Each structure stands twice: as C-alpha cells, then as structure tokens.
C-alpha cells in the first residue's frame, strides 16, 4: 500500500483504491444508485394503488405482474442493499478507522474485495430485470414454493438454461453475493476494532458507534449462516430439481420461513444498532453532555443481540407453527423490547438538562428517536401480541409498522449522520437552507404516508395487493381518501430526497470550504484531524487519554475535551 498522499485518477479512486475512505465513498455511491431505483419503484406502485387509471410517465399503467416486481424489488433493495450498505458498509468504512485513530482497516485488500462482491451483487440484481421474467416478483421474503416456480408469469421453465437464466436464480445469487460481501466487511470491522485502536484507547473508550457496527456485524454473521444454507437449497430447488421446500417430496415450505426469519429478525437489529450508534454520537455532541450510561447501553445491546436470535417465529404466528410455540416467542418478543426501551431512555436522559444545540443533524436525530419509539416501537407491542397479530398480520398495519422502524433508523438516523460528518469527509459545508427544507419535507410527508397506512391496516387492507378498488369493503368510506393521502405523501417523500441528492452533489463541488476541522466541537478522534482527512487519516497518530464523550466536564475550561487531549 502506498503511504504517500497522491492525487489519484478516477479509475484508481473508484475501482482500485485500498483507502477505506474511497471504499466508503464507493459503497455510498453504489447504494444510493440502487436505492434511487427502489425509491422510484415505491413511487410508481403507490401511484398505481391510489390512481389506477393514471398513466405514469415511463411506466404507463402497470399490471399486477409489474406491480409485484416493483414491490418485491423495492423491499429487497431497501432492506438488503440500502440499509446495510449505508449503515454497516458506508458508515463502518468511513468512521471505524478514523474514530479509532488509525490509518486504515486491518485488511485493506479484503475490504476492497468486499466492495467488489457488493458491486457484483448489485450488477447481478440489475441483470435480473432483463431476463425473461423482467424481474423477480415473489415478495421480498422469497417464500417458496412461489419463488421456486415461475409465479404465474407464463414463462414455464423447460430447460436448465430457462431455470438458471431466470430472475429467481439471479436474485438469489445477488443476495448470496451481498451476504459474502458483508461477511468479509464484518470480519474486517471486528479485527480493526480489536487490533488497530489508537494508543491508549481502551475497549470501553471506543465510540459507541464503532461498537454498534461491530456487534451488528457479529450478529449478522451468526444469523445469516442458516439462510446461506437455505439460499443454497432454494437455488438447488430451482435449478436441480430437488425438493427441499416441496411438500409433495417431504420438503417443507415452513423450513424457508424459519431460516429466513432466523436471519430476518436479527437483520432488523443489524440495521438498528448502527443507527443507534449514530444517534449516540450526534446526540452527545449536540447536547453538550456526556452519554448517559455508556456501559449500560452496551450491556443492554448485548442482551438484545442474544435474545434477537430467539424471537424469529413472531413473524409466523399464523403461518402454521404450533400455537404453543407462539406463546413462547411472544414472551421473548416482549422481553426484547425492554433493552431497547432502556437504550432510548438513556438517550433521553442524555438530553435531559442539556444545553442542546438544535442543529440540523440534531433535528434528524431527535425525530428519529420520536418516530422510532412511538410509532415503530409501540406498534411493535400490538404486533407482538399474537392474538392481535392474527388480525393485523400481512395487512398495511405491518407495512406501516416496519416502515416506522426502518425509515427512522435508516433515513432519519442515517441523515443525521450524513449531515453530521459530511463536512469532515468532503471538506465542505452543506447548504443549510436545502438541508432544512429536506428535513421538514421528509418529516411531514413520511408521517403523511405512514399514519394512513396504520388506519388502512386496521380497516383490514391486506398488503401486496395490486389495487383495492375491486374489493367492496376496501373501497368505501374514507379508505380511498387515505390511500390517496398516503400516495401523494409517498411521492413527495421520494421527490424530496432529490433535494438531498442535489445538495450533496452541489456541496461536494461548490459548497463553502470548512473553516474549522472541528465545527461541532466534538470530542472523538475523527474531528481531531484535517477535513478531509489525508491518506492515512492523521499527520500524527493520536494518543487517547479519555472516554469518547467528555462534554462539560467539571474542571475543564472548554465545554468539550477531545479524546487525545490531556486535561
């Protein structure tokens, strides 16, 4: 690895660079590129639901088959590529080495390889849209037997090449490759945390975000294994004629559900933990207070991590598992909500009696907490009660619930992090006016989209339907109006993200140059180097004397004490 700071060409920077910051940028651009399409998909199918006769530009009037493809790929991309790509890969790559005060990841080449696998998975996913099926449309949970066959597309599989060059196979291959990419990334994060901390930095002086990303990576590794095996079996079911999920041959469709949700539920925490880590950083910096209960939060998160491997069947209360097992899973589900309540309360205790600064990142962070707790967390209690879940399962209520858990974590906390660290890694400032506009539009229209969905779900609207107008009980009263409100809000929500993209690109090239290396007056190590950090991150490698959140410490003149500064 070259240790000189050189001006690199485009190809070098975007394809062959070993620098963690370049790889972080590659992840960011790739995920934003693919998420752009997922956002467009959401807009198109929401418009189709509320205004089925409207001729959508570029898409026309979509039919049920196209609708399924759009919904499926929206879910797959948002959950597997966007969420993990931003919160694990991008945040991990940019922030772990800089926060630990070191030059790079433990294995830069492995890091590079991990990105290449990620890119390959995205390419294979894109190819799946150009195969005879025009994309996979069996639901993002890929439940067999539907995902084994042609799911009613009238493109029957006759030969091996029909089966192999089908959207089913390619989507599964893309998922498998993405898992490989993130496993490699996770190994890197873990080794970097344990081996490459700055001198003097104890394990309990590591910023919480780094811990959260590493714990999330470990959780990912332990939960994804069975699904990797399951994906392998599903690929064989499609391509080699085995019957792992075929009931007529002794297989069991429920097996996939178990393997999938054994990964799928911890996956929620894989996404949630880095989000909480970002919130911890942004909140302490802007509240000018030390984080309340650093060790307490770590212990709670570890408890929740272990518990999260034992709650998967609450996704299957009415899917044919033994109802007595449902009771056990219901109890565990309720228990797992408690540690997260503790984490959120610790954040709120950090805010208490603080001289907080209501900066843009802080607005994102506080609204993330409010939305996640109230509308994401508390509706989880409804769904965790198996009896009510019998009614609400697979209705729009569930859709609203998981959008209220994922969007506050991925979009709101993610944006909090983005607006917080942008000036560090670009050396320029974002436009504040556009930032505020982006925030308020997102906040208002996200709720305008989510709250109607709760009501629609309570009215008994099943999810994944390509239109409801032919069903009498769903097209009377205020329900069509609710769908229209949700649709218009969703469209504005997606469109307002273009403000962000514009702001991002414009600020990278034309934004005001930063005047200070530490504009937020933050304590962690990434703020103690120049903006943007040079190749190798630090001119002089820092030595750490304190924990990460020394704000307003008695006996110190300033209201913050950087980790590498002696009292």
């Amino acid at each position: 690895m070259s240790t000189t700071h050189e001006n690199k060409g485009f190809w070098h920077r975007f394809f062959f660079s070993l620098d963690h910051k370049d790889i972080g940028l590659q992840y960011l651009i790739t995920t934003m590129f693919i998420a752009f399409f997922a956002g467009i998909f959401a807009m198109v199918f929401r418009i189709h639901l509320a205004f089925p006769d409207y001729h959508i530009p570029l898409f026309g009037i979509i039919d049920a088959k196209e609708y399924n493809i759009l919904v499926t790929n929206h879910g797959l991309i948002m959950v597997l590529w966007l969420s993990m790509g931003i919160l694990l890969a991008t945040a991990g790559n940019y922030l772990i080495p800089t926060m630990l005060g070191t030059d790079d990841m433990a294995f830069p080449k492995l890091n590079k390889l991990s990105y290449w696998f990620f890119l390959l998975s995205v390419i294979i996913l894109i190819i799946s849209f150009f195969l005879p099926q025009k994309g996979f449309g069996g639901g993002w949970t890929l439940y067999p037997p539907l995902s084994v066959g042609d799911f009613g597309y009238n493109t029957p599989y006759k030969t091996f090449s029909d089966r192999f060059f089908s959207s089913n196979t390619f989507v599964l291959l893309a998922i498998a490759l993405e898992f490989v990419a993130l496993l490699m990334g996770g190994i890197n994060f873990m080794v970097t945390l344990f081996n490459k901390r700055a001198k003097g930095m104890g394990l309990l002086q590591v910023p919480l975000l780094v811990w959260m990303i590493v714990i999330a990576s470990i959780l990912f590794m332990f939960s994804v294994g069975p699904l990797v095996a399951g994906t392998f079996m599903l690929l064989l079911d499609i391509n080699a004629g085995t019957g792992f999920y075929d009931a007529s041959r002794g297989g069991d469709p429920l097996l996939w559900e178990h393997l999938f949700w054994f990964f799928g539920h911890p996956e929620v925490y894989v996404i949630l933990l880095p989000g909480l880590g970002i919130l911890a950083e942004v909140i302490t910096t802007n509240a000018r207070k030390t984080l309340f209960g650093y060790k307490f939060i770590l212990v709670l998160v570890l408890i929740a991590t272990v518990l999260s491997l034992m709650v998967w069947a609450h996704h299957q209360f009415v899917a044919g598992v033994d109802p007595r097992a449902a009771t056990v899973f219901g109890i565990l589900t309720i228990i797992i909500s408690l540690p997260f309540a503790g984490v959120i309360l610790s954040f709120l205790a950090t805010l208490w009696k603080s001289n907080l600064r209501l900066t843009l990142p802080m607005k994102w962070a506080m609204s993330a907490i409010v939305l996640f707790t109230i509308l994401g967390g508390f509706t989880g209690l409804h769904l965790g009660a198996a009896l009510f879940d019998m009614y609400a399962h697979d209705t729009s209520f569930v859709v609203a619930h998981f959008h209220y858990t994922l969007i506050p974590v991925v979009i709101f906390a993610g944006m909090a992090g983005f607006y917080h660290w942008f000036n560090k890694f670009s050396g320029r400032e974002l436009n504040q006016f556009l930032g505020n506009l982006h925030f308020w539009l997102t906040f208002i229209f996200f709720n305008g989209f989510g709250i109607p969905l709760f009501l629609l779900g309570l009215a008994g609207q099943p999810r994944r339907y390509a239109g409801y107008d032919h069903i009498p009980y769903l097209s009377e009263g205020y329900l069509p109006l609710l769908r229209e409100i949700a649709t218009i809000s969703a469209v504005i929500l997606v469109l307002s993200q273009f403000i962000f993209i514009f702001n991002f690109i414009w600020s990278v090239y034309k934004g005001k140059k930063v005047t200070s290396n530490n504009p937020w007056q933050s304590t962690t190590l990434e703020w103690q180097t120049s903006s943007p950090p040079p190749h190798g991150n630090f001119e002089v490698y820092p030595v750490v004397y304190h924990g990460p959140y020394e704000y307003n410490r008695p006996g110190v003149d300033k209201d913050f004490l950087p980790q590498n500064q002696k009292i």
Partner: protein
Amino acid sequence: MNTTSLSKIAWNRIPQARFAMWTLIAGEFVIFGGLIVVYLLNRMKYPGWGEMAMHTNVVAGTINTFVLLTSSFFVVKAHEAAVKKNVEKVKFWIWLTILCALIFLGIKAYEYTHEIHLGFTLSSPALLEQGKHVETLYWALYYTMTGLHGLHVVGGALALFFVMRNVAKTKSYFHRIEAAGLYWHMVDIIWIFLFPLIYLIH
C-alpha cells in the same frame, strides 16, 4: 506521511490473520450448522431415511475420515516448520496435505459415481418413479452437504497451495500458513460432524 509514529502504536494486540480466520470459521460453522439442523429434523421425521443411509459406502467414508485426519496432522507439521521458518519443510508438509485433499476428492468422486449409478442423484427421478418421494430429499441433502463440504476441501487446498507458493517465493508471511492451516482444520472438523450423521446412523 508520518509512518514512524504509526509503528510506535501497539496495535497488533491479537495476531491479525489468526483472529480473522477464527471469525471466518465461526461463520462457516453457522452455515453448516443450519444444514445439519435441517438434516437432523428431517431424519427424525422420516424413518425411511435410514434405509437410504444404508446405500452410502461406509468403508469409503471411513477411509476418507482417516485421510482428512492424517492431513490435519500434516498441516500441524507444516505449521511447526513455519514457526521455525523452514521453507523446504513447509513445502513438503503442505504438498502432503494437498495430496490428502486430492485422495479425499478422488474417493468422494468414486462414491458419487457409484451412487449416481444406482439412481441416487440430486433430484433422484428413479426414486420418484418408485413412489419414494420423501427419500429423494435424503439424497438431495446428502449431495448438498457433502458437495458443499467438498467445495470447502477444494477451497482449503487452493488456499494452502497459494499461501505455500507465496511463502516459498518471498521467504516471509509464515503466519499465513497458520491461518490457512486453521481453515483446513475446520474443513476436517466439519467432516467429523458429517461422517457419523450421514454414514453411520441407520
């Protein structure tokens, strides 16, 4: 770039390659763990599988177990040589390990051809014709588990080969022998789990 201050940092707290390899091994065990759980659950559900398990070649399986165990011993010897930085010895023991891997794959290939000859394949259409639907699943899992393990044997042998070649060329990177060796032990241990499950329980 100020490289001197970087080297002063006490950062190789745990040998890096070994740590990463243990993490990878943990991940691999979960993958095979998933398959083994699926196998055991089905095994308890379908008594007909015992009859199918009779068709596996226990002798070949036993020989293969010994081959892999021996190869693990060779890898340990290679590691010993690597600690002493003895390139020639490293090369000798690794070549023996790779030879064992080839023998293992050869015997496995012989078993596969024999079983395919009897009509037991991934999808086993012959069994389906006899109305033995559930039994086809046994062979599907048999090929999935041993096939995936076989791929790991190939991968492990390739890793050993490239690491050895690099060590021979550069006369350094001896710690990589240990990492690749750890991976090889994992391949061995997974077989120790698979062997009784597939071959011995009737």
